[in-house]
């Protein structure tokens, strides 16, 4: 059975903890193990931070929409901002020696590491969307 939870926040960093609370509740309900749950929380956190700071450029009146879709075997999280999107293939590799000491540029790398699928797209009604999917481990 598929269930959906949606929330919408103003682009304020103080609301990021609210998203984390919902993420924790969802991963607990889905019985992800502790490690996976904490990495999912980090990946969603990074996506929301990117939406606020890069997508919406910290304009508090622009919304970030977060939609959790839970299925038996997987969690998918959609994070939509009101920005113009970007080409993720153009991002520098944070692990290359030239970039190792850069203070930024690791958020999407962490998302890709900890989630099974990460896809960036443009929303048909405007803004960009990142889709994060984590599959349950087969026990």
């Amino acid at each position: 059975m598929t269930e959906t939870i949606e929330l919408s926040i103003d682009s304020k960093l103080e609301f990021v903890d609210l998203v984390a609370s919902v993420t924790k509740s969802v991963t607990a309900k889905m019985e992800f193990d502790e490690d996976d749950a904490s990495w999912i929380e980090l990946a969603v956190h990074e996506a929301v931070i990117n939406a606020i700071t890069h997508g919406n450029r910290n304009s508090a009146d622009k919304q970030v929409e977060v939609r959790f879709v839970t299925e038996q075997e997987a969690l998918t999280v959609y994070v939509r901002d009101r920005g113009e999107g970007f080409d993720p293939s153009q991002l520098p590799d944070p692990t290359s020696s030239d970039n190792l000491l850069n203070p930024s540029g690791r958020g999407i790398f962490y998302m890709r590491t900890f989630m099974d699928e990460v896809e960036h797209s443009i929303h048909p009604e405007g803004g960009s969307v990142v889709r994060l999917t984590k599959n349950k481990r087969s026990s």
Partner: protein
Amino acid sequence: MASLSIKDRQAGDVTILDLSGKITIGEGSVQLREAVKRMLDDGKKKILLNLGDVSYVDSSGIGELVSSYTTTGNNGGQLKLLNQTKKIHDLLTITKLVTVFETHDNEETAIASFK
């Protein structure tokens, strides 16, 4: 409510910053930056960051550790890590930053390593 608490103490000429809480975008990262800057401004150039009570770090927090490391180095000092948690170790490993930071699990050994 402060997301990160930072207390400093001296062990000879080594300054230990005991961090507790979250190093994340915004307040936590700024607090760490300011604390390291304050130490450097005071001429304290051997800095050991004790991460044992850090509960959560995001990519901005990892970036701030990198900035603290480079700022300290640029000021003729050294910055090392003590008691990194498993999560921090994983985040540093994935981004190959384990090759950058000198890390210790024992405070005495860490302090002695600055000599």
